[in-house]
């Protein structure tokens, strides 16, 4: 069939790209000089990070008393930020692993960036449990390592210990998953850069990738195992375990069995929103309009709408159970959330997480990127407040009215929170500058996938040229470059249905 024929579906990648063009488009930001916009953004991020580092240094030097916590409220900004960032870190694995297994081809445009975002978010998240300790220099005590402290050992009953394992596992698997996905692209970059440190680094990290079929075969297998066996369960487990921090306690408002699914849904909700926010920025600044089409945002906002409802149902369930339970402390905890002195935070949460996403019922809004951009930012504000509401409003008025207290963050806490954004964006901007934000190899696999399935003769001229230059014995042949997505080339229901 003619390529220009009326597509059965809107193409995933606009602009009738050839694989070669994909390589050129994606590599462009890495090869040229950094734009002033990048520099400006990087500088701002770096300064924010610096502020954060200064705040944390001060806090560790002087004491955790520099936070606004008290005898009643032992956690607030710290763990709110922790859960917030872990939640942000959820979209990456979801897109990479679950959507991969569900053969959602649109994921190829966003998975690389989402995975990177995951890594950086988990890094940000991981900082908070460490610095929130009274004696962070002893943080290694939460690791079960052989020691000479007699019978002292970590407490496997503590949800905080489960967190340690959950977060570290998640970080390691996400990093591996991300790196493995990067290898073919690193090889491409290796071949495009002729000299320099960058070339040598790309060369080292591409692990001698030569694009042969057997390499591709093994690569596909590894990727599938990582996705199916490791990453997918993690998507569900990490936030479930984080939710146990609260669910297994006795604090009214924390002690809730609905938390694991509620937290997972919330995490996907916030993670997706963050991906959308970042992708809209990347699309604009890095001229990736052809790769991140309105169709992508359409799908992602639908997902956001769906998870918004899951979260809404969780809110309703919590409230219903609290009122239905007959437990006066439980009832009070929820009424106090909605109508107590910190009700403002509850209503920010509800309006941002439930009301705002409802605009995504309308296709017009789903495809109007400024609207989507603003909405997703609101959603993330709302999701931050969700954690704040759960943690702080439950703690501030619990069983004994004599100990009721209130909370206000100090400058140090605000600076630390800002600093975590600084860290996140510093890492993300460096990533945009030195690594391909879009998985080239995978994109190539879905080029033209809106068309009737067929073998597309693809010659990646650029890549071939490079390969030829490297290997005198390389043969010129018609190379099908199947990305991971290509596995499903003939089977995808999306393509076969009309």
């Amino acid at each position: 069939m003619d390529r220009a024929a009326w597509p059965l579906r809107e193409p995933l990648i606009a602009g009738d790209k050839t694989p070669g063009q994909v390589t050129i488009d994606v590599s462009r930001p890495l090869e040229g000089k950094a734009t002033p916009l990048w520099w400006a953004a990087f500088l701002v991020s770096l300064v924010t990070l610096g502020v954060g580092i200064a705040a944390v240094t001060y806090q560790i030097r002087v004491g955790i008393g520099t936070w606004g916590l008290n005898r009643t409220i032992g956690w607030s900004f710290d763990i709110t930020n922790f859960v917030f960032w872990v939640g942000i870190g959820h979209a990456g694995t979801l897109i990479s692993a679950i959507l991969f297994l569900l053969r959602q081809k649109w994921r190829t445009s966003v998975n690389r960036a989402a995975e990177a975002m995951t890594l950086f978010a988990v890094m940000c998240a991981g900082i908070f449990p460490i610095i929130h300790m009274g004696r962070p220099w002893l943080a290694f005590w939460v690791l079960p390592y052989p020691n000479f402290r007699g019978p002292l050992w970590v407490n496997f009953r503590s949800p905080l210990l489960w967190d340690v394992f959950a977060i570290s596992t998640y970080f390691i698997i996400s990093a591996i998953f991300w790196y493995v996905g990067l290898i073919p692209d690193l090889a491409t970059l290796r071949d495009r850069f002729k000299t320099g440190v960058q070339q040598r680094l790309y060369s080292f990290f591409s692990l001698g990738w030569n694009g042969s079929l057997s390499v591709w075969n093994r690569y596909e297998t590894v990727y599938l195992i990582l996705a199916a066996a490791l990453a997918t369960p993690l998507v569900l487990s990490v936030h479930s375990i984080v939710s146990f921090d609260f669910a297994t306690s006795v604090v009214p408002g924390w002690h809730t069995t609905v938390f694991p699914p509620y937290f997972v849904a919330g995490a996907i909700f916030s993670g997706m929103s963050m991906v959308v926010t970042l992708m809209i920025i990347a699309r604009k600044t890095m001229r990736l309009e052809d790769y991140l089409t309105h169709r992508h945002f359409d799908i992602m906002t639908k997902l956001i709408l769906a998870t918004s409802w899951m979260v809404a149902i969780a809110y309703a369930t919590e409230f219903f159970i609290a009122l239905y339970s007959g437990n006066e402390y439980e009832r009070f905890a929820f009424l106090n959330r909605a109508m107590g002195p910190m009700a403002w935070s509850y209503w920010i949460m509800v309006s941002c997480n439930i009301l705002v996403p409802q605009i995504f019922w309308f296709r017009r809004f789903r495809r109007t990127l400024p609207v989507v951009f603003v909405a997703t930012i609101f959603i993330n504000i709302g999701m931050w407040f969700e954690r704040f509401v759960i943690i702080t409003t439950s703690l501030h008025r619990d069983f004994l009215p004599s100990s009721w207290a209130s909370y206000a963050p100090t400058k140090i806490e605000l600076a630390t929170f800002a600093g975590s954004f600084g860290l996140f964006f510093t890492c993300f901007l460096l990533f945009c500058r030195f690594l391909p934000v879009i998985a080239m190899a995978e994109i190539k696999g879905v080029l033209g996938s809106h068309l009737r399935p067929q073998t597309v003769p693809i010659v990646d001229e650029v890549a071939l040229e490079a390969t030829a230059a490297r290997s005198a014995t390389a043969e010129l042949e018609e190379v099908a470059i199947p990305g991971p997505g290509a596995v499903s080339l003939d089977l995808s229901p999306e393509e076969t249905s009309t």
Partner: protein
Amino acid sequence: MSDKRYWKSLEELDARAEQAESAERVSPLEEPIGRRGFLLASGFTLASGVLGGCSRSPVEKAIPYLDQPDGIVPGRAAWYATTCGGCTARCGVLAKSRDGRPIKLEGNPDHGFSAGGLCAVGQASLVELYDSQRLGAPRLQGREATWDEVDREVRHSIEGVVTSGGRVRLLSDTVTSLTEQRWIRRFLGQFPDGRHVVYDPLSSSAILDAHLATHGHRLLPRYKLDRAEVIVSFGADFLGTWISPVELTAAYRRGRDLEGESPHLSYHAQLEGRMSLTGSNADSRVVVDPGDVGPVLSQLVGKVADRAGAELAGFGAVSASAVEEGVLDDLADRLWRARGQALVVSGSESVREQVLVNYLNELVGAYGATLDVERPSYQRQGDDRRLAGLVKEIQDGDVDLLLIRGVNPVYDMPTPELAEALEAVPTVISFSGSLDETSTRADVVCPEPHFLEAWGDSEAVAGVVSITQPVIRPLGRTRALAASLSAWLGEPASALDLIQDCWRDEVFPRAAIGAFQTFWDRTVHDGSARVTAIPTEVGPFDRSMVRSLSGGAEPDNYTLELYPKVGMLDGRHAHNPWLQELPDPVTKVVWDNYACLSPRTAKHLDVGQNDVVLLELPDGAALELPVYVQPGQHDRVVAVALGYGRAGTDRFGTVAPKWLEGKPTVVPGATVGTNAASLASLEGRRRRYVRSGLRVTPTGATYDLATTQIYHYLSVPEKLAPADGKDRPIIQETILPEFLEDRSAGKPHMHHFDSDLWGEHEFETHHWAMAVDLSACTGCSACIVSCQAENNVPVVGKDEVKRRREMHWIRIDRYYRGDEHSPDTVHQPMMCHHCDNAPCETVCPVTATLHSSEGLNMQVYNRCVGTRYCANNCPFKVRRFNWFNYAHDDKLQNLALNPDVVVRERGVMEKCSFCVQRIQEAKHTATSQGREVADGDIQTACQQSCPAQAIVFGDLKDPESRISKMRQDPRHYLVLEELNLRPSVGYMRLVRNRPTPASTPLAEGEEGSHHG
């Protein structure tokens, strides 16, 4: 030694060969450095460098005694019986001394009247011993001097005065020391015009004067609250600050005993204007403007006289009562029915009112039963009329030599001119131990030692003599009053000799014992002795002064009531950080005084807590103070605490941790709180703390008060209450008639748990537990300071308290119930509950808190990394976190630290340990004596200090122990039982002596505005 070595077996030979071989193999460093050698060496260097850097503090070696002093075993505490010098009540204390330094004061159970308890002030007076601002040497004209110089100078002025025949005045607080009285008499006797003026800043002068009028003898009777079935108190805060709170609390408690077969509960009615600690414990509390007390008393007298059939003119006519109809009839009925077992007390400063009180007591047969005038109390001897005379003399420049002892008139007299007038007195000698407002104006300062470093004696109550003995060598060159006076009389002797002389002459003859030395030794050992009281000649009751009082408060203006606060009293303890940080038992405010307004008045003036108001009296005295809205206060009464605003208290500015947003507790140059003494008056030759005609104006300014409790009710704010919202069953209470019918009355309906996912904990030897009797606890807060001293609890300063970070391991939750205009008050001591199913234990990732085999919930400071999860998960919120490294840089004050308890580093969690160090000590003692730990061997610090004996501690494994029996008592309940935490701390239900249940809760608005 020969090199020859013989082998005994082939194996040994082999082994030696192997050793030799391996010896050759080690030390690769001797070889030319290869790769392995290099790695080994660098690895070792790195590791040793890193490890070397790990040590956190330098090792300090303790040096043992070269010659072991007799009776001192390093690390073992010695206890000395002595007498408390915290106030003029002079309770018996036991001072715990470790390695030569006193570290804890406890009540002496064998003492003649204080009976084992010790109040917060007494507990805290320990830390004043180690106050670095105490004077270490006498001062002459503002500079340090030697005692010889001082003595020369003083003798010189004495000679001058003796020859000129000038006036000599000794102004002192109540002197209960027989030796001091003797030497004061002798000292003043040498002058033609020498007089001793006794001045109690917290005066009971009116009571003494009233007895002079009615009994012909100026005396303060002893109040036998334990014998009273009905106690009617007109504003006397006898459980908090009045005369002898420990003694009175203990007696009050003895009259309210619900344990055993025949429980009995005295009936206590309190008629007062402000909410006092005593009022908060009353069975019936009637709000009366102190200005209306006269007419109300007259009415009551009339009603009781009616019942007694006494003929009395003018009493029936008094009307327009400030009290609701029927209240006084009820009181009169009760008093009359309980005649012989009834008691009326009053804190009034009006002699005429006190005369009425005496007459009431006479009518109901209190004298000889609940009031002892034959063996009176000497704890307050102040005479306001003489004081007023002296002030006039000073102001007129008529005094030639003034000696000031134990009082601080420049600070607490309402006459600002006094300071200048003092400058005009030719010679002023102060005996103050520190440079206070008065002693800085003295020509000579002859500092007296702290009571823990000096010999002293006391007869605070007729017939009970006690000894003060030194527990530490004096920290400075100080000298006791008697020693100074004797030196100036030319008969220098040590305080000990003077006391022994005096006792040989005056006390020993009253003791029925063989030899003086035996008597002396026994008294020093026991701390106190009973001797025959010097008989007081009391005449028959003289009714001639009994007159009905009319008038009353003006309805248009407010009445000011200045009151002493538990802890601060008259201000003499203002430099004591423990007492400054002790939450007021009623308001829970620390580090400040304030104007208490009733909720209605606050609303009327449109002010709230922290709004500053201007208080103005008709005589021009004015003061700006922040408002504290006090439920249960009379609408026309404004109450302000005395004892604040002492000079030099800005030393506490830096008591709080310093950091970016940290505010000083008090700014340099300012004072902690405001001195309200200027609002008092000395008009009519009487010290008045109740003033009428007060005007209150909001200023629009605000000033933040720091409180440890911001929500005061057991019911949640109304709009957040579920439809069937009731009080939380944290406090359970009932009334006496119901209790007598059913001992478990007051128990709320609750679901029961028959199954448990976890197995029970197995306790093999002991299972420690505690019970707190809410009917006994008065909220006096002695336990808080006792715990602070015992467990090295840091002081954190006002700003940190405001951030809700106070560190006290035990707190007293105070809740109001019912209508905010006349609420019921409850006090609930709250400390770690040592739950068997402790929520804190499961959540700690590093097992820093865990359960001991004896049921203790232990906190391992070394292991704690400070996640604070345990505190979040504690339903009682009793865990305390070290947010900073709290100040321990006062080396002198650090001597008060208990070496048995670790000083916690920042970043770790801490909490009540059930005084585990005491448990261990008792177990060791029992083991060394070859016996089991007996019930009562272990007393926790809070339990020991409790004057009301509200706290019981013991072993649940011993079925005969008191705690085991209390746990079986139907009155016993567990807080938050439904959480199945299995706490080791339980409470005994509160029983109020009233005929009908309290009014139903509640009408209380959202407190959200205070949560800012």
